[in-house]
């Protein structure tokens, strides 16, 4: 440990006591999130409990010329929370209080470390929920949802995180505290709240959030449709939307992943179907009956071999549990995964899917597809064993081809997982130099010295001068 590290630690401990961790175990663990990427060495980790503490930590880091990286539950899939270099990690997991719920105004003030599903469980007896439901909702935090503008199966009808955030208290990289947005329907001035949501920790650290809470629908119907091929499932999805129905959620899983989740949840997902479509409609009882019936008909017209409706809440929850734990279930097939998060126009979904299978074949990799079909948001997971020599090169190359194919189909890089370090190298394919310059300038408006989560999102050549020594997607992050 260098002398400067010791001085930094001493200052941090004066504020946080034993809630500063700097041992080798902690440093090693925080090099990773839920992605395949490994960062540098996490600097001291500060387990903060209040806005004031976050502010003091940021000021101390600034005084010691150190960058900061905010971290929630570390369930990100793009390496957004991994440390590059040796920054101070600001952990927000202990800031997990639900501060205030106003059902009349339909607003809740929460701290950033509140677990997404904990908020919904808290609201359930009051008749409300927090609509964005990322598949990792049982562990991911609201702060992380804000940082990544997270989506989830039910965001098809309800909109992604951005639509559910009213105001955010932020500690900026210089230690200042500001509140972006407000509780009024039309706050004055530029929508800086909208800028901040999806900022991936590069615009400052979220310390308090006012979220919109959504009334629970009076009726819900969940359908499970089986198909011979993913193509049939994908065309059904397009046809449902074309028929003017906007279901609450439409999710597709291919055969291999369906078998893996069925091994875990045992709810009766068909093991012999080429793909399944999980469709949910909610609203008034009469409406959902009509929509459910119509979706079943459209499914059959497009090759559904079986249509089943969840008969109880318990069955419905289990079906969703299967879908939402799909990524974690892949270790049944291979010990490592790398997934993309591209979005393509719904009409191109079936073609792009077939291209993804072809690319995986070309590189001799296993691939499973589980995705938010209603949004055209693909999640191809390349499965591999990281111990195999040279495997990361193949995985990386196949990933690049998948991105290329998605962009060629008129798609975008990321639906909801963020750019992090993972998609940084592809930013040039999506944006012109001019676009990237403007994004960088926007970032500077919040954080001129690029101290907050440096080295992410914006690729090399567009990053701040003081972190030029950090290559974008630095050497070694790939395993």
């Amino acid at each position, binding site marked *: 440990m260098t002398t400067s590290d010791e001085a930094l630690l001493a200052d941090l401990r004066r504020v946080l006591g034993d809630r500063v961790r700097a041992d080798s175990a902690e440093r090693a663990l925080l090099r990773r999130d839920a992605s395949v990427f490994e960062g540098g060495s996490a600097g001291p980790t500060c387990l903060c409990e209040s806005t004031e503490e976050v502010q003091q930590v940021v000021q101390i880091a600034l005084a010691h010329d150190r960058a900061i990286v905010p971290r929630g*539950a570390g369930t990100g899939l793009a390496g957004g929370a991994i440390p590059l270099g040796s920054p101070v990690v600001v952990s927000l997991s202990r800031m997990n209080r639900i501060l205030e719920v106003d059902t009349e105004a339909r607003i809740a003030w929460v701290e950033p470390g509140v677990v997404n599903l904990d908020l919904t469980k808290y609201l359930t007896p009051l008749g409300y929920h927090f609509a964005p439901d990322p598949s990792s909702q049982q562990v991911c935090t609201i702060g992380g949802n804000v940082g990544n503008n997270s989506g989830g199966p039910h965001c098809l009808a309800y909109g992604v995180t951005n639509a559910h955030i009213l105001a955010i208290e932020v500690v900026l990289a210089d230690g200042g505290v500001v509140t972006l947005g407000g509780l009024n329907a039309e706050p004055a001035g530029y929508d800086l709240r909208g800028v901040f949501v999806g900022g991936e920790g590069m615009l400052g650290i979220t310390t308090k959030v006012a979220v919109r809470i959504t009334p629970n629908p009076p009726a819900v119907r969940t359908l499970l449709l089986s198909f011979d091929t993913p193509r049939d499932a994908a065309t059904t999805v397009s046809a449902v939307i074309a028929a003017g129905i906007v279901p609450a959620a439409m999710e597709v899983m291919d055969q291999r992943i369906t078998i893996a989740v069925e091994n875990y949840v045992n709810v009766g997902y068909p093991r012999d179907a080429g793909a399944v479509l999980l469709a949910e409609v909610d609203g008034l009882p009469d409406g959902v009956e009509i929509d459910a019936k119509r979706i079943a008909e459209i499914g059959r017209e497009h090759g559904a071999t079986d249509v089943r409706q969840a008969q109880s809440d318990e069955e419905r929850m289990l079906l969703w549990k299967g879908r939402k734990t799909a990524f974690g279930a892949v270790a049944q097939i291979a*010990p490592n995964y790398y997934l993309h998060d591209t979005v393509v126009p719904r009409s191109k979904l079936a073609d792009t899917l077939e291209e993804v299978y072809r690319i995986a074949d070309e590189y001799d990799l296993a691939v499973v597809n589980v995705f938010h079909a209603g949004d055209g948001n693909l999640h191809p997971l390349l499965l591999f064993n990281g111990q195999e020599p040279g495997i990361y090169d193949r995985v990386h190359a196949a990933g690049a081809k998948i991105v290329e194919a998605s962009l060629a189909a008129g798609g975008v890089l990321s639906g909801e997982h963020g750019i992090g370090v993972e998609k940084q190298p592809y930013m040039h394919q999506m944006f012109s130099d001019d676009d990237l310059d403007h994004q960088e300038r926007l970032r500077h408006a919040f954080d001129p010295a690029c101290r907050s989560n440096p080295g992410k999102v914006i690729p090399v050549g567009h990053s701040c001068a003081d972190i030029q020594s950090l290559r974008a997607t630095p050497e070694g992050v790939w395993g």
Partner: protein
Amino acid sequence: MDLGIDPDRLGTCVQCGLCLSSCPTYRVTGDETFSPRGRIALMRQVQLHDAPLTPEVTEAFDTCIQCLGCEPACPSVVPYGHFIESTRAALTEHRGPWKRSVALWPLSKPRLLRIGSTLLAVAQRLRLVPARLGLPQRLPFRRPTHRTSGSDVYLFTGCVMDVWQREVHFATQRVLEAAGFGVTPTGDQAGCCGALHTHAGLLNRGEQLTQQVDAALDPSIPIIVNSAGCGAHLKQHSSHQVFDAQEFLAQHLDRLPEVTPLEMTVAVQDPCHLRHVQRAHLPTRTLLKRFVNTVSELDDDGLCCGAGGAYSILQPKMAQQVRDRKVASITRAAPDVVASANPGCSMHLAAGGVTIEHPMVIVDNALRAG
């Protein structure tokens, strides 16, 4: 250092983090080091990459309560319980297993245990036992002897529970008899099952004690266990048929007499070894619903209470933080009494000010009230 974990199985964690919320020590610390994902990553570093066993690394392993709440949360069905058991065994070996062997030695000596407990009861009356040890408030001086009423089932009486909570055994026996079963309490013929030894990393000794239990009992007679920890261990290690008491009785609900349900609200606290290991926590509700007015659920998704066998004594600080979280959940549910089917949990929670009974005692009370 070799932790004795199969490297292929150690590779099955993809680090998705879906286990985090189900881990009591992560929940109270918010610190990755105290999470299943973090602990598995550290096991990998120690076993596969020869990382040093620093105090922080051993602390990460020692603070695991082994509640196994992470196992049902894992979609890849990573056998975490096997990992931590193996890690504990390697650590115990590394530190010198004699310390733990000595500490647990009395468990396999029933008479010594009774004498020790009586001395402890005297010391308690003389106010020589600090409350923080979490012992039952008034240990009994004397214990009425067991009686045999038939040989349809064994009632497994175990070690510490038989000394400190024998009344729970009597209640369980009365309920089994009310359902028409002749009961043989195992008593001294089959003492400690070895669960605490296995938990503490003394795997061979644990196995040996289980074999002694098996050898002493007739394999054709089912063993009924009313301690969730012992039941979980016996189900995994014994070759006999083993049932949790509530699980067994819920299957024979029609044999129990109809009585007026007790006017009370009971909140069910699931012992981890019943819920996560035996996965037999629902029968407790089936049974209680027949005998009390209202059965209510806690809102913490069955998170551990922090007792963990000897954990509350070995890791008092963490155990208390975990208990505080549980007590807050109990306070929100505001029941008249909490039902818990494990002696460790009930002692730990009682020391935290919770009114707690074994479900068998509640059912017995209802049956006796008629």
